[in-house]
């Protein structure tokens, strides 16, 4: 009865052969195309390095001013603006200014890239059920696959460094913006779309004048989620060589520095709250037209 207890697997040698074949093939691929793929990501690397340099080289009062200005533009709320400045000052006082700047730069770059790639993919999904049925399972994989697993091929291709970290962050953080762009467009009122058609809109005019503006609050919620998930990934990203607050947390874990861990963890939370409140307030302002004033 042993065959009932032991699951009849393919056998050790077959499994080992499968592993070796796939690994070998991927290694060949890396050798053949690794350099050209790395070249392909050169602009991304440039963008990331420059954002980081900008944040770290700029005098700190100027950064505070810029952050306060951007938060004010987005939220138009003194409360949120002032709290953001206070949070950053406290972070600075505890000696985490430079790491925080690096983390903000990383999050910013990851979010911008996620928006650039995510929104068009989301639009594509909303326009075709077939595209949706292909993209959806891929998004499921991206969100549930442990990040370390997809880090393996990325590291094989790029080695340790900023770019593989950025790729890992984007893979993890891009699904919400794709999903919510798709959802937002699909939820646009069919009556309004019919009106747009009746006046002779082309499909681009439909997208630009009706679908995107009406889906924007939903898309903003997606951007907000993307930012939060990007921040959540900084610790994992630090394992492949991304500098910033995550690296300090990693150091704290390795050496059991409780205070260092808590302080850097709280700094990540602080940055997250600034991003979250500002982007949510902006999303809410976009919906001003939905206020019902009259009956």
């Amino acid at each position, binding site marked *: 009865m042993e065959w009932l207890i032991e699951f009849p697997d393919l056998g050790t040698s077959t499994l080992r052969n499968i592993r070796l074949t796939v690994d070998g093939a991927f290694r060949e691929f890396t050798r053949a195309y690794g350099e050209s793929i790395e070249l392909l990501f050169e602009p991304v690397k440039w963008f990331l390095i420059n954002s980081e340099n900008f944040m770290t080289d700029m005098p700190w009062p100027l950064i505070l001013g810029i952050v306060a200005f951007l938060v004010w533009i987005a939220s138009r709320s003194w409360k949120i603006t002032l709290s953001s400045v206070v949070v950053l000052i406290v972070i600075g006082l505890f000696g985490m200014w430079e790491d925080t700047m690096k983390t903000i730069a990383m999050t910013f770059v990851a979010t911008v890239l996620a928006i650039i790639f995510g929104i068009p993919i989301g639009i594509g999904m909303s326009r075709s059920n077939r595209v949706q049925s292909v993209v959806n399972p891929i998004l499921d994989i991206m969100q549930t696959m442990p990040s370390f697993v997809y880090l393996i091929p990325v590291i094989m291709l790029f080695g340790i460094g900023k770019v593989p970290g950025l790729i890992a962050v984007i893979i993890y953080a891009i699904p919400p913006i794709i999903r919510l762009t798709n959802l937002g467009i699909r939820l646009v*009122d069919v*009556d*309004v779309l*019919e*009106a*747009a*058609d*009746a*006046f*002779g*809109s*082309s499909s681009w*005019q439909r997208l630009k*004048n*009706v679908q995107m*503006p*009406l889906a924007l609050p939903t898309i903003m919620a997606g951007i907000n989620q993307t930012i939060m998930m990007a921040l959540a990934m900084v610790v994992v990203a630090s394992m492949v060589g991304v500098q910033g607050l995550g690296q300090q947390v990693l150091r704290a874990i390795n050496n059991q520095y409780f205070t260092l861990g808590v302080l850097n963890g709280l700094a990540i939370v602080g940055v997250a709250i600034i991003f979250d409140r500002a982007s949510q307030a902006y999303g809410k302002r976009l919906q*001003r*037209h*939905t*206020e*019902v*004033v*009259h*009956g």
Partner: protein
Amino acid sequence: MAEQHTGIGISIKNLYKIFGSNPEDYVDAVKGGMTKSELNEKHNHVLGLKDINIDMPGGGIQVVMGLSGSGKSTLIRHINRLIDPTAGEVIVGDEDVVKMNETELREFRRHKTAMVFQKFALLPHRTVLENSVYGLEIQGIPRKQQEEHARRWISRVGLDGFEDNYPNQLSGGMQQRVGLARALTNDAPILLMDEAFSALDPLIRMDMQSVLLDLQKEIRKTVVFITHDLDEALRLGDRIAILRDGEVVQQGTKQEIVLRPADEYISSFVREVNRGRVISVDMVMTPLSGEPQGMPVRKGTVLEVAAKKMTDSNVSMAHVIDREGKPVGALDIHDVISAMVTPVDHETAA
């Protein structure tokens, strides 16, 4: 009278619409006499419209009336092809809308038609002004010109001062005024109104009907108006077509429909109508024989008014005159009164 018929006429010919996965397969069967229920039960397809033939003269208001499910909203969407027909022709001016390709259809919708919707269908993120310019904006007309046109129509429908409000800040009646302004700003010769006033309170509905009738004296567009309300149909329609289960049961002027309902279905509708306010003296006058007698009554006067005039001046005979004052017929008070009273057979039928 010449300018009354400057608009583009619409002619719907042998139009069929079947909803389902393979509608083409069943057109011939339906043409051969398959009924709606047979099509539904045996083949799981829904017969939306069956052999519709309506001629809508340019510059007039054509009302299509029917209860919900009669296919009237489906029918109006065939005129600008928001819905594709299964078979048939929709001739607008001298073009067949059904044969247009995508580009031609878009141009046709931009320049020839404008539509007003039951649920208003305004763009909620745009102000009244920005909503009104929508048709011109997608035509690529300069912004200044768009706004000039839009402001004129916004003012004409009585929304002065609300240009910068969002639709949500307005009441239902005002929102539909925006819908009307948006359609009129487009300056298309055909105005399609799909139950445009059905969502409004009765008083506001009357008000909007007056706005439309007032405007129509000036703009003389070909208006297709969908409604489920007979009073509204009689008030607005130059011509009325009545739809039931996707078929036209009767069409003609409102007087023809009130005086000579084609079947029991329609007579049950018109039973409650105040005939004195719908039927005009033209329908009951007899040809002139000899000299015109009694007092003159203008052509087009409704019976109620004519009867009041005649009894006030205590005469039993009158003659009908046209616009130039030429006598065209004779009028007997007995005919006037008997036409005003609902026929007895309808009473007993109820």
